[in-house]
């Protein structure tokens, strides 16, 4: 189930191309065509969840009107169907369908129709270019997520490295927005955001490299495959996930990654770049309408990406928590759906956690933020990296008898 193979079949001349060209083609050609259809609902669902939970946290209703029924009622043809919800057998079901589920679609509609404002002093080109760069950077990472068993848009052998590289493209975009807006709040927000992202990339990368080091590969599908077994069990269920491997030692890199990930996507309690008490709204202060929605989509897709990376690297990705042989005999399509379900369930679990964090924790101060990164997370991550290196080497030593030279292990 690789899109690349699909593309090869579709366009035979692709076989002559270097793989990378095809990858890039996939990324840049199908980004808006395919990923928008996939990622936009994802981000939409994330916004819905956020708003509902925010409502509950603040003891008020969240969006509760624009649901399927409203959609049906809005159109004359389907209005009779909407009336069915008042009829007895359907009334019960209709009441269970949450209202407000389509609020994000309505919001999108609204944002598309709003006026596109560009400040007179702004650098027009940068101001316009910025949302695309930011969104491209955050969406490009989706190309390598293993959404199900051996199923990712491209099966890239440097998968997680590619994700890190792509996420760093966001930073110039944000700076672009900050500078181009010709607004000091925007500039401050952009620079804060950039410095924050650049700083937190380091502990995050080290934590992820710990997993890469243990798995011996950067290919996300292969990383998932290494989590099928663990503790000497062939198919170990949740015990094979890196979070639970090595007697729970990997919880520390996981926590570091998750904290750093939250900071990288500027979520509370690390949302200083857009702290409204200080900077109005950060780097997208001057943005409105359609361009603003791009930033918003980028933020929510980044949230999901953080959850997806955590899922892939630490929680076995699409692997179910029970041993896979329970469902091995099922048809292929169902198994595919099973993996799909678990991947998104885990990823959305992290999204939920991040939303809860936002409405629970107060905001950091900027110096506290930097201190947390440089003085707490990074040393711990480094030490843990070395610790896990030592553990892996010790295990390799135990696994490999002494007569075999260690150098021979390298090419295994």
């Amino acid at each position: 189930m690789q899109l690349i193979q699909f593309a090869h079949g579709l366009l035979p001349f692709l076989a002559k191309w270097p793989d990378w060209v095809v990858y890039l083609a996939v990324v840049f050609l199908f980004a808006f065509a395919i990923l928008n259809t996939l990622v936009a609902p994802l981000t939409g669902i994330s916004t819905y969840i956020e708003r509902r939970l925010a409502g509950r946290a603040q003891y008020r209703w969240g969006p509760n009107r624009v649901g399927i029924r409203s959609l049906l009622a809005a159109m004359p043809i389907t209005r009779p169907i909407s009336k069915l919800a008042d009829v007895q057998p359907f009334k019960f079901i209709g009441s269970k369908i949450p209202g407000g589920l389509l609020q994000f679609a309505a919001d999108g509609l609204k944002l598309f129709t709003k006026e596109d404002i560009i400040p007179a002093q702004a650098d027009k080109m940068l101001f316009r270019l910025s949302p695309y760069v930011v969104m491209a950077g955050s969406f490009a990472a989706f190309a390598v997520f293993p959404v199900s068993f051996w199923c990712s848009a491209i099966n890239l052998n440097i998968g997680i490295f590619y994700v890190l590289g792509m996420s760093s493209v966001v930073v110039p975009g944000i700076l672009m927005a900050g500078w181009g807006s010709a607004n000091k709040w925007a500039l401050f927000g952009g620079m804060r955001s950039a410095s924050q992202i650049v700083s937190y990339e380091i502990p995050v990368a080290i934590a992820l490299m710990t997993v890469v080091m243990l798995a011996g590969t950067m290919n996300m599908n292969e990383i998932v495959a290494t989590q099928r077994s663990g503790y000497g069990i062939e198919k170990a269920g949740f015990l094979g996930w890196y979070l639970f491997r090595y007697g729970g030692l990997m919880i520390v890199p996981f926590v570091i990654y998750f904290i750093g990930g939250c900071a990288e996507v500027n979520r509370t309690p690390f949302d200083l770049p857009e702290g409204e008490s200080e900077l109005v709204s950060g780097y997208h202060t001057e943005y409105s309408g359609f361009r603003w929605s791009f930033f918003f989509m980028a933020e929510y897709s980044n949230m999901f990406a953080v959850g997806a990376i955590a899922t892939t690297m630490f929680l076995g990705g699409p692997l179910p928590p029970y041993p896979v042989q329970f469902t091995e005999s099922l048809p292929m399509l169902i198994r595919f759906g099973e993996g799909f379900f678990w991947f998104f369930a885990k990823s959305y679990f992290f999204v939920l956690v991040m939303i809860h964090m936002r409405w629970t924790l107060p905001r950091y101060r900027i110096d506290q933020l930097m201190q947390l990164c440089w003085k707490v997370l990074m040393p711990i991550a480094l030490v843990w990296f070395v610790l896990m290196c030592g553990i892996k080497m010790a295990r390799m030593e135990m696994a490999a008898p002494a007569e075999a030279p260690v150098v021979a292990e390298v090419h295994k």
Partner: protein
Amino acid sequence: MPLAVAANNMPVASLEWFLLVGAFLFACGIFTILTRKNAVSVLMGVELVLNAANVNLVAFSRFVKAPATLGPAGIELPKGVDPHLVYGAPWIGGNVFAAFVIILAAAEAAVALGIILGIYRNLGDVDVDQVTGMKG
């Protein structure tokens, strides 16, 4: 003008194309360094030069025959172990050196930014033409 002919498994373009792009990047970088007054622009020129060098390194790594020497001198591998699998393929040298250049560029950019900020603090400007403290 003898050009290397692309074989079956060659990249889509021959070595000369990459070298030409690298030469152009190099020339642009030199031009930037020579003409710009702003220190940050000079820094950009330096990055262009480094990228030009990297392009050449990687291109040579891909195209040009690698020397046969393998591994650090004086270290003998056990019999039956392919040295390529231990020390890396011989043709990887260009890539490795490009990686080193990237590492050095990162270090250089950090230090350069520190110097630029220092100049800005002291002179209130970043005009490199005014920084003539080493004039004889």
